[in-house]
């Protein structure tokens, strides 16, 4: 009764359907990207123009010397990420990547909560393409072992 054989321009209808889906997908993607793409901030940018509360962003900079403090639960750390103009306090709960040390670079993924950046994930800044993966994971314990072997 309602499922009649389509009129002669079946092909046209199908094409229009495909185009509508394509445009719809495009618009949806554009909208979602504008809302959900995580922008990258340097500390000075974060302080000058903070993102909307709760928006997922990335913060990259240097870990300030002497700033890594482990909390009593043993798994949460507070530290400062800075560049030459600003400092941002960061909190992270979890197992830190091996080359996360004071004085080195880090990229933190997370969001601002008040004045603290709460990080869900830390990336030691060693994912640059030129760095072999070997570099990423040598811990100080290993380096000590290497030295011991040399002696």
């Amino acid at each position, binding site marked *: 009764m309602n499922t009649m054989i389509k009129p002669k321009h079946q092909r046209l209808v199908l094409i229009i359907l495909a185009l509508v889906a394509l445009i719809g997908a495009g618009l949806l993607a554009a909208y979602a990207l504008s809302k959900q793409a995580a922008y990258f901030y340097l500390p000075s940018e974060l302080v000058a123009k903070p993102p909307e509360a709760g928006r997922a962003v990335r913060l990259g900079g240097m870990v300030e010397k002497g700033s890594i403090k482990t909390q009593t639960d043993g798994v949460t750390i507070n530290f400062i990420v800075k560049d030459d103009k600003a400092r941002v306090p960061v909190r992270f709960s979890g197992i830190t990547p091996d080359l996360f040390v004071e004085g080195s670079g880090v990229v933190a993924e997370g969001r601002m909560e008040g004045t603290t950046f709460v990080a869900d994930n830390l990336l030691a800044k060693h994912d640059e393409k030129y760095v072999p993966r070997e570099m990423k994971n040598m*811990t100080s314990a290993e380096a000590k072992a290497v030295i011991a072997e040399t002696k």
Partner: protein
Amino acid sequence: MIAELGLAVLWMAAALAVLQLVAGALSLRPATAHLAGVVRPVAILQGVLVACAFAALIWLFLSTDLSVKLVAENSHSAKPFIFKLAGTWGNHEGSMLMWVTIMSLAGGFVALIEKRLPENTLIATLAGQAFVSLGFYAFLLLASNPFERLPEPAPEGAGLNPLLQDIGLAFHPPTLYVGYVGLSIAFSFAVGALVTRDVGPAFARAMRPWVLGAWIFLTLGITAGSYWAYYTLGWGGWWFWDPVENASLMPWLAATALLHSCSVLAARNALRTWTVMLGVVAFSMSMVGTFLVRSGILTSVHAFAVDPTRGSFILALLAIYIGGALLLFGLRASTVTEGARFAVLSRESSLVFNNVMLCGILGIVLVGTLYPLLTEAMGVKVSVGPPYFNPVSAVFAIPMMLVMAVGPVLRWREDKGGRITWQVAVPALVSAVALLAVELLFAPNLLPALGLALAPGLAVASVQPLVGRNLRRTPLPIYGMVIGHLGIAVALFGMASEGAFSTERLAAMNPGDTQQVGPFKVTLQDIGPVAGPNWTALEATVSASYAGGTATILHPQARTFANPPGNRTESALLTRWNGQLYAVLGEEGDDGRWQMRFWWKPFVPMIWYGGALVALGGLLALLGRVARDVKRLVAIDKIAYRRERQGR
């Protein structure tokens, strides 16, 4: 010696590919039509030769021949055998050789057994395959020679990245590559059909088993990769929307659409133009994926050692092959006549809807993957992750699954709504009840809630085509469809359950401390050193007891490798029927406490069981069709034989 032999054989194979292309192309002209006889044997021989080259490379790795640059950079004499073997393809050049090997073997296989197509279409297909292979041969021989020698043998190899020293490396890349590259056959079929203007049910029936075969492997490869990442990265996640993961998902989405479209074309001679286009698109996505991964244009934890000149080479290949095929499509598609008609409510329509949704997901995954590139060109750095991919793909995936529930029971050509009332009502009811139960009992987030509600309804709907059938006389492909769709429902349940019910516990523990992780009580008993073949590790002994039952011992480790130096966590998993306990050992704090991370993930293995089921469904469908073809050939032979005898 072996290296030189391997290289020589590779050059010979490349030369054969040239011959295959030239002979194939020329045979389409009446004057040189006799050249057609050359094409099939050449294709088979080409496959054999490349396989020999690949075998040579494997030999070099297994014997740790350190005079070969690739072996010196990627292997080590102390590596366990399985990783020496798998290390062959754990690097750019080796995996590229594997790519070419599979392509040639697939082409050879087609030449050997494909007898359904008109001969000239098949020749055009093989010529197309050779044409595409040539680009990759050139890339391999000119820019990524796996057999290059060092001026002096290295004293020892650099070793394999610890992250790759896992059984997953032995399994995941080859499976994935058979899938990726198997789609090249569909590409060549599509090109062949466009060239000889022969797009019809015969074309679809010939192409379908190849698409099915590649698709099965792709499904398995992606499933395996997801599981490998899950247990090896120690983050508890099973899909990260990483560019390299997306690079494998996109061809899968296109191949799934192609598979369904092929069915329509084979059964009803409709969706001709669309099927041909998908044939081109599927392998194009494989090529785009390989480009994204190897060019360094997108950073990812998976990326190979990158080199922009390699990226340029592959980009040129992409431009030639995809551009060329799409150009051919534009020129010839208008000559493809319109297929048979179908009504709004029909099997065909549901498959069209499925295809459109799949392509929608493909599009948004592509856009999301490329978006950082776009913004970087404008100076803004951005990363796109699960907050984008999950909800946006759900917008397409959910309607698609709803239609997937109903499509298989619809009739071809035209159906009436009244006929399928029960088949719609029963799953809908099941899902509604599930949704209510989930909301009342757990109130999880939206997407997991929808998944938990949808999955049981889908499971019921997927077996509905079997209702009312004589189960012993039902053809295998129907079982394949049922199990494939059931697999989707199972995987969906696993994904939703993981999202809704996972609990995590992160704590710094002393030996003797206990934590509660979901229904498990975990106690850290001890931390001590252990050694493996080429690693040393700190191993934690953790006892885990489920709801007060007998304890099981787990051994999460933090492994240290020497060649090359690196660390990797070896997570410990305890699998029950209703979920997995996942344990990771972290670092020792200054106060002597050890960081431990635990997850209880209810029903998470369903994700990969579901994936395996989907692949199984495909396998049943493939076997069913192949069996039918073989029977037909045997029957035809018998009749011909009988006729011949009578004719005497």
